[in-house]
């Protein structure tokens, strides 16, 4: 699972109102190179919750993202430094082994072989 997907996931245990973002506990992180695509990044940027991305990246050992969400002009700038960092954080870091933790209940969802198991127990539905 990559951070682009982590940014779309929330805990849906019954009664939980604040299930986003899930905290990442990383055991193994793998990097895989992906072709750089600025158009795709600009499109996705609007959907990304910045703080969740920064924290997620940090918990996977990547600290290069700026704390505050950059404004749109940086996406259009000729200098691709920012877009390259965004690209790396969103698409090239894979959480292989670890867990996702619900921010409200502390319930842990295991991540094995890159797949988060978000299934709920009967009493959580």
């Amino acid at each position: 699972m990559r951070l682009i997907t982590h940014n779309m996931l929330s805990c849906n245990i019954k009664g939980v109102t604040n299930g986003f973002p899930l905290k990442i506990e990383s055991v193994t992180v793998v990097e895989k190179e992906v072709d750089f695509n600025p158009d795709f990044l600009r499109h996705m940027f609007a959907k990304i919750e910045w703080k969740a991305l920064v924290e997620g990246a940090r918990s996977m050992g990547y600290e290069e993202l700026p704390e505050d969400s950059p404004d749109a002009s940086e996406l259009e700038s000729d200098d691709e430094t920012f877009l390259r960092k965004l690209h790396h954080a969103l698409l090239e870091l894979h959480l292989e082994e670890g867990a996702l933790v619900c921010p409200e209940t502390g319930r842990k969802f295991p991540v094995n072989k890159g797949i988060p198991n978000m299934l709920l127990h009967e009493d959580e539905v």
Partner: protein
Amino acid sequence: MSSRIAEIRLVSSHREVYEPCDDSFALVDALLADRINLIEHKPKICMEIGCGSGYVITSLILLLKNELPGVHYLATDTNPIAARVTQETLQAHGVEADVICTDIASVLEKRLAGSVDVMVVNPPYVPTPEDEVGMEGIASAWAGGENGRRVIDRMLPVVDVLLSEKGWFYLVTLTSNCPLEICLVMRKKGYASRIVVQRSTDEENLLILKFWRVKDEESLDKETSSESFVSQFSRYLSSFMEKRWR
């Protein structure tokens, strides 16, 4: 040149996971038939609910990847073994999708709402006793309860939430699922529909439906009256009956 769809010999398997079968092939054929349109559609996020062996999502990626490099692919399954098998199938083909083990798409509904441009679903559509629905393992791949509609009917509102304004939705159905009724349910949510592929095998009569959102009521009327799904269905049903009576 790399193959355009997933190769069966590279599709991973497990006794608790549904293997690619006529329904999977019909769905991939529908995507192949619509490939040019899909490329012009320029989706940014594509998703499969119930990815099973991974044959369909892998094929979708292979179909689009040369022409459309910047697409994010997601796949979900309620069976953890299926999620793993899908991951293996993707890896064997050297392609990338994020796989999540969840019931339908419940963990994505909030944050992914209105973002999915292409959704593909081969649901558990086989009519079965109600108590077989939602069992663990391979049964979750086919058990559909009364008319095979129990899971389909839970999926439709989720798909409606996740699809973007320009979203397309491909769904495998059987004639016994009352597909016309499914089209009417979706029509009420503002979707036009058509049959992309129809196929009769020894055991089942498969229809691959495609749905797309229509902006206003007037054009929905136009879309559904010109190449109307009602007339499409009656044509399909009469040809099917003819075959059967012969």
